[in-house]
Every structure is written in C-alpha cells, then in structure tokens.
C-alpha cells in the first residue's frame, strides 16, 4: 500500500490525478490539500509515501513546503510550468508532470517511482532549500531507516563530528546529517548552540552540569553524555557562564 496525498490549489487538477490514480489499487488516497499550509499539516500528520504536488499555490508554493516537513515523501510535481521554468528550481532530475498530461504520461511517472532503482531524488533539492533559508532553519534533513526525515533543531541535544558528516543526538535518537559540523555551526542559532570543541556543538537548553577542572571544563548533557570543552573554544563558554 502506498499512501498518497494530492496537493493542488485547483479542484479539477486534484480530480484528474485522483481519477488517474484509480487505475492503481496500491495507491491509496489519504488526503487532499488546496494550499501549502494545509499540505504541511496533512503530510506531517499522515506521513504519506507519495505526494502529487502542484508548484504554484497561494500562500506557500510547492517548494516552500519542503523545509517544514518532518518526513520527506516521494514527490511527483504536477505543474503548468514548462521545463525551462522548472530548470530554475533544479528539479529537472525529479519526476514531474507538465499540465495538461495524458494517462500514459501519468503511468510513466508512477511506474518510474516503483522501479527498483528508484531513489528519493528530492534529497538534494530539499537539502538546498532547507539550508538556504535566510534565518536559522527550524528543521534539519537527516536519513533514518532509508527514509528522509527532518529533525527539529530545538530537539537536538548536541552535535558530534563524524568524518565529513555529523551525528545529531536528541533525547531518544541519534541521526546522521549529510552536513559537516562547521556547516551546521553556521546554520544553528548561536543563541542556543555553541561550539565547544573542534568536534562538538552543544545545545545550552540541555546542559545538566558543568564540571570545572584546573584549565578545562567538562559538560554533562541531559542525556548523560559528557562533552569536553577544548582550550581554544573555552571563551565561547565563558562568555555565557560568567
């Protein structure tokens, strides 16, 4: 069973997709949205496997909803844009249907999706959209069980460098992010997150204890993880504590 949500601001657009979907018993419609805000709410609630997503919608466009999703499903864009306009969004590698489309074109897009080699091609775009946000992003894209999900930055207890990647520790989980620790340092709000070591960033809200030794500090987080503060980053911490 593949859970599907159809998002298009125009009712006929949704009707046509739902009609074409009816040829695939495995595609089960779990919701419809006619704007970006509702789409985010529905997707976060139902965690669909696939969404049909219109690009131009009032309020929030198809791309703008991506950074707000907790889990990023497979996406087939359905748009009146032409290939050239889409190129501007670098989505040419993704599945998209140009309106108006025929049933056979619809079939192609759905078949491609279920192919064994199908990977979620939305990742690079989603990453880009998330990291390009002007302010500090509320969510960060990570992999978990072969799924693309997002973690709320407020839930991150601390970050540990992991080669070119980073480990994000929350109270209950560990996630791997594609971004290195320095890239994350720039994207995490410095009012809450501070770098304390070449390979660690901590969330001030989750500090349990600070242990002072002659010439160094240790920080005990609420997860009982012990994070060392290195000499070169000591000033970052001092500014906050004293």
């Amino acid at each position: 069973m593949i859970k599907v949500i159809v998002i298009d601001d125009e009712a006929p657009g949704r009707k046509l997709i739902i009609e074409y979907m009816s040829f695939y018993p495995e595609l089960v419609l779990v919701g419809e949205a006619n704007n970006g805000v509702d789409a985010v709410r529905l997707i976060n609630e139902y965690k669909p496997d696939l969404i049909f997503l219109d690009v131009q919608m009032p309020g929030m466009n198809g791309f703008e909803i991506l950074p707000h999703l907790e889990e990023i499903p497979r996406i087939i864009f359905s748009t009146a844009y032409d290939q050239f306009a889409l190129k501007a969004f670098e989505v040419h590698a993704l599945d998209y249907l140009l309106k108006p489309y025929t049933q056979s074109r619809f079939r192609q897009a759905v078949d491609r999706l279920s192919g064994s080699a199908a990977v979620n091609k939305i990742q690079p775009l989603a990453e880009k959209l998330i990291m390009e946000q002007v302010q500090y992003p509320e969510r960060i894209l990570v992999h978990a069980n072969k799924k693309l999900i997002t973690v709320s930055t407020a839930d991150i207890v601390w970050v540990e460098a992991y080669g070119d990647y980073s480990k994000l520790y929350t109270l209950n989980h560990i996630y791997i992010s594609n971004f290195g620790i320095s890239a994350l340092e720039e994207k995490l709000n410095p009012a809450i997150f501070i770098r304390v070591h070449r390979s660690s960033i901590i969330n001030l809200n989750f500090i349990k204890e600070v242990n002072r030794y002659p010439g160094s500090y240790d920080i005990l987080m609420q997860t009982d993880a012990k994070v060392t503060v290195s000499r070169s980053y000591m000033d970052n911490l001092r500014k906050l504590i004293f």
Partner: protein
Amino acid sequence: MKGTSKDKFIGVSTWEIVFYISFFVFSASFYYTALWLNHGGLHLKNDPFFNFRGFLNWGGIDYFLKLLLSIPVWWLIFVKLRRVTLYKRLLIHLVILPLFVIAWIKLYYLLLDALKMIHLRDWGSIWDLYLPALFYIMQFGIIHAYVYFKQNQENQKIESALREAALKSELSSLKAQLNPHFLYNVFNTISASIPSELENTRQMIAELADLFRYQLQASRSELVPLRDEIDFTQKYLDLEKARFQERLQISIAVEEELMDELIPPMILQPLAENAVKHGISPLINGGKIAIQVKRKEGEIEFLIADTGVGVKDKSQLIGGGVGLTNTALRLEKMYGAKLSFTDTVPSGLTIKFKIG
C-alpha cells in the same frame, strides 16, 4: 530573394560581364595610348593613332590574352572555391600569380612571333613579367573588393528582412499573448472536465499544449535537436489529421542517426503547415504529405512533398505567407541554403533544402 537566376550566369549579371570586358578594352587602349605617346606618336607623321595592326601589337593582343587567362582564375577563386576562407584564397593567388604570368608571356610571344609582330627581348622582357603581375594583383584586388562589397550588401538585406520578420512575429505574439501558465492550467481544467472514456481527447489537448510549449522554447533557443522538431511537426500533423481524418495521410521518415543533429527550431513545421493549408485542404479527396530527412553528401536533406493542388508560379511562394518566408530567410542567413521548389508527380508541391 526572388528567383533572379534567370538573368544570371553562375551568379554574374550581364551588366557585370559588359563592365568586365570594357575594363579590359579600356586598359588595352590606355596602354596603347601610353606607348604611342612614348615613341613620339604626336610628332611622327607616319605613325597615325588609329592603326589596327599597331593596336593589336601594342596592347590589343596583350589584354585579350590577359582576359582569356583571367577567366579560369576567376572561376577557380570566385566560383569553385567561393566557400574557402579569404585568407586561404589569397595564398592560392600566390601560387597562381607566377603561373598566370608565365602562361601569358609564353602565349603572347608565340602569338606575336607568328603574326610577325615585335616584342621586348632579353632583359627588356622583364617588363612583360612585371606589368602582367601588377595587372593581376590590381584586377583581382578590385574583384575581391567588389565581391566583398556585394556580399556585405546582400547580408544587410537578409538581416533587415529577418529583423522585419522577427518584429512581425514578435508583434503578432504580443497581440496573442496569454500567460502560458494560465493557458496550461485552463487546458488541464478542460482535460479534467472531460469524461475519462475520452482519453484521446485528453491526448489532443496535451498535444496542443506541447505545441505551445515548443513554440515558446523555439523563441528562446537558436538550435534544437532534430528529434524535437520532428516530434513537434508530428504532433502538429496529428492534430491536423484529427481535423481532416482520412483526407490527410502522413508519412515521416527520418534516419535515426540524424535525430541528435542540431537544427534551428520551427524550420520544418511551417513547411508542413504550408502543405496542409495550401496543398491538401483545398482538395475534396485530400492527399498525402511525406516528410523525409536523410544524410546526403555530408549535409542533411529535408524533403517535404505533398500530393495537393500544386503551385504554378513558384516565384510567388516566398514573400507571401509568413511561414515559408521565415524558414527561407533563416536558412539563407544561417546556412546560405535556399528552398527549392519542384512539382510532385502527378500533382502537388515538393520543397527541398539542405543544411550542414
């Protein structure tokens, strides 16, 4: 742009030939006059200016031979090798120049000896090497300048015609401009409102939208793969086929290896449209349109043949409908290629052109 080939011989007009010959007659007379004055013709009683044998001896035969020898050189440089770069042709001149001078002097002395006329001898004949060489350089210098000037003029004409055509189509597209998003969304709405059994109608709507998309793309890019243009023409003809039903038969044959070649967009479809509009649609029983694209002598040959009413006066074809004129102008501009029109047997029009 009109078929002016009637009053021209390998691209040369009668006036140009007359002018060219006059140039030699003038040069010969000028030279003769100078020689006559040089040996005191004004004062000598027994040396009249009007003296046919004297003229032949002192200029006439000289320039007549130069004319005869210049023609093959002209043909080689300005007809056969006209597509070779100017730089290379100048190098070729360097080879031909001594050949020209030697051939001329041999023939000249042979002829004068046979006619028992006098010519320069020994070291004096250096003048008969120097002057023809000078003449050669002057003559071809002038011709090169003239041809360059003419080509430039021609290019400017084509350019201004193209600009005019571009302006025209821009104006007409401005007049017809609907926001394409609006258009495609409306198409989609129409598509959705059709009962699902009518999938072929939805297909037609999608094809129509594809035509619009391609046209929009064409206005933005200089070159597209042949595949796209064929696809576009096919979709256009499919829609016409839906209108005309069995009155219109279509066959499109394109060599597969050519599909990725780059061609200017919207160059084939206007010809197909012309064939439908003027060839097939006036006929009660309709007819057939055959499109062929194949490789020929390293170039890509396009053939659009219809079995329609045909056209008697083919010189009227270009300059009328915007479609044909536009294609013709762009071919001329980009490839120096021309549309050729012939009759389809037993009736109809065949249009052919080559690019490459």
